């Protein structure tokens, strides 16, 4: 398909996506489970509140429901629990101070790994000067491998491996 034929399709698709994304999503009211997922049960079971079914968890849920009825926000409810039990009640570390390392290091790890992969691919592709080759140089005069040919090649490789 040539590029001028693609343009109307791309424009229509993008417009549709933008319009649909702009439509409002349902259900914005704060629910108890949204808060529960941010807190740990304090009974010592090491479970997130929304996954624990012990008596302590039930009491905590009741407290949360009461606070929601009072009109408190998610942040206010969580702060109230932190004030009472300390930061260890949070199911994930707050994004501040030393804890930023917890969030940053995995991203840095991915970036480093990705960068390393790019460096290696660059190095490997340039080792015997293949990086500037065109498709025609490596694909046998530009003839693409047909599906039939691919099946045959795979089958032959399999036989060689079995032998």
């Amino acid at each position, binding site marked *: *398909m040539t590029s001028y034929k693609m343009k109307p399709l791309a424009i229509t*698709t993008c417009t*549709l*996506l933008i319009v*649909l*994304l702009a439509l409002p*999503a349902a259900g914005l009211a704060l629910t108890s489970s949204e808060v529960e*997922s*941010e807190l*740990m049960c304090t009974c010592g079971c*090491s*479970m*997130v509140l929304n*996954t*624990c*079914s012990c008596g302590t968890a*039930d009491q905590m*849920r009741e407290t949360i429901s009461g606070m929601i009825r009072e009109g408190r926000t998610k942040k206010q409810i969580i702060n109230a629990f932190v004030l009472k039990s300390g*930061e*260890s*009640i949070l*199911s*994930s*570390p707050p994004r501040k101070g*030393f804890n930023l*390392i*917890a969030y940053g*290091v*995995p991203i840095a*790890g*991915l970036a480093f*790994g*990705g960068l*390393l992969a790019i460096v*290696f*691919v660059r190095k*490997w592709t340039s*080792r*015997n000067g*293949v990086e500037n*080759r065109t*498709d025609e140089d*490596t*694909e046998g005069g*530009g003839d*693409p*491998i*047909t*599906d*039939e040919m*691919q*099946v*045959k090649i*795979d*089958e*032959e490789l*399999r*036989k060689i491996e*079995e*032998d």
Partner: protein
Amino acid sequence: MVSIGNYSQLLALFFSLTTIALLLTGIMKNDFRFIMSGRRALVTVAFFTSTASIALVYLFFTNNFQVEYVASYSNRALPLFYKATAFWAGQKGSLLFWAWILSLFSAVVVYNTRDEIDSKATPYIYTVLAATLVFFLALITFVTNPFDLLRFIPPDGKGLNPMLQNPGMIFHPPTLFLGYVGFTIPFAYAIAAMASGNLDESWLKKTRVWNILAWVFLTIGILLGGQWAYVELGWGGYWAWDPVENASFIPWLVATAFIHTAIIQERRNIMKVWNMTLILLTFVLSLFGTYLVRSGILQSVHDFGATGLGGYFLVFMGVVLIGGFSLIASSYRKLRSEKVLESYLSRESTFLFNNVILLALAFSTLFGTLFPLISEAVTGNKITVSMPFFNRVNTPLFLALLLVTGLCPLIGWRKASADNLKKNFMLPFLAMIAGTIILLVAGIREFYPLVAFSLCIFVAVTILREFWTGAKARGKLKGEPLIVAFPRLLWRMRRRYGGFIAHLGLVLMVIGITGSNAYKLENQATLTKGQTLNVGAYSLRYDRIGKWREWNREVYAATLSVFKNGTSLGTIRPEKRFYVNAQQPTTEVSLRSTLLEDLYVTMPAIGRNWDITLKVMVNPLLQWVWIGGFTMVAGGLIAIIPGRKRRVGSNDIL
């Protein structure tokens, strides 16, 4: 029987040490007779670990409560079935189980290498296996012996934790162990390849079945653990990113990366250093999983507590890591690839980026698991890193992995041509756009679910397109109708299509995970008889409650009539169970599963006037998590079905 168990363990340890001594002597003196003796000694280890294992099961069956391990994990009321599986319920038994499986696998390796006994690498393979056996056998013989006796004979045992009295728990630990132990074999071959200097891809070819089989077992183990959590713990989920769950997931991720790059080494003879590193890490991380469980360094719902074994595992892991990396460093020149990648746009490159993402996932999971320790050591603050953190950090990585899974089949080996790439991309891309629009119209506006479902469409279409073009090509070549060509193609090229089936399983899993997490509905209420609880389109009416005695427990079961949009769907019966000798009652989930959604009901409390507290959830698409998981397993198994050996000179094509 206690003496038989003790002596068997001791003799197994003795023969493991003998194996090492004989093999090292054989290697140093270049004397074939020592190596043959070492082989026989290694097989003997399997005989003695089997005897010890049978002895332990016999002690459970005969209620010998003077044995501390039996008294801790069994009692008279425990059904016979669970008495057998109590073997691996605790630390001591599971370590014996580990040693037993490893010794049996070692015996299989001895059999498989019967024609390669003169190979330089073979004695090293046996030595690594025997050394690993020595570690586990020394632990159970001298540190944590399952045959230790109490000074008195208690009238009854403590019994098995009620949570573990579930069919899923029978197979979850052994399959996990089979996975962990399975990776010892490719690790042993890798070390042997480096020690012997035979660094071509032959070790990978010989261990391909082991790699995938170990991965399959680890996958089954993780899935069964998830299923157990889902039906037994009563919180409506299957994965909580608990440290012990992560301990099995981390080696799974690294092993998955290894399986992918092993294909590149087999096909192109490149990435040798990388593969050596990955198999070394997979093995060490399998040990790390056990370390995490046994050391008690982290708080976990799997409350194994501090067992005093952490130090031993730490030392063993240290030795393996230092030894392994030293070997890689000393073999680096020989391991360096002469061949190179030909293009960024090649399947090899996508495999490399798939590796980066898999390892980033493994790293972030490991880092998150250990972060509470790091934080406490640095700041003195005790913090918790649980589900929301892992979901936040890992979800984008999973989506990136899904994208690469879709891109991979579209890009050819060595160097993709731009025209081919455009041709291959068009259909999946258009299908994804069309699917996204349909999803948006259907009301799915949340970012992650929308991206996940859209990518699922993209990946599914790329995979199905592979099946379609392959079957069509074969049909054209052989003059077969598609319905015949497709299964024949699948069978003839099962390694390739087994891989695609595994990827299709991943897509199905993502659909299940996304649906069940993003669109879960939940309600909880206390009902008296005749009252109704509503969740989404469902209404549950509390009809009656019954009580009876069953095996080693007292059961209270409420019967609820279920209606969906006013139509009766029958009844559902959540239970509360009180086990003999157990401190707390357990809740038994009642499930009504369809491919569209699960109705998940638990009864956390029963009041004095027979009023009941119900927790009801509707988990959309959840069954696809299991269907996808077991599709992955099926794909792995299809990929390793052995082929018939072809007659030499045969020249038939297809």
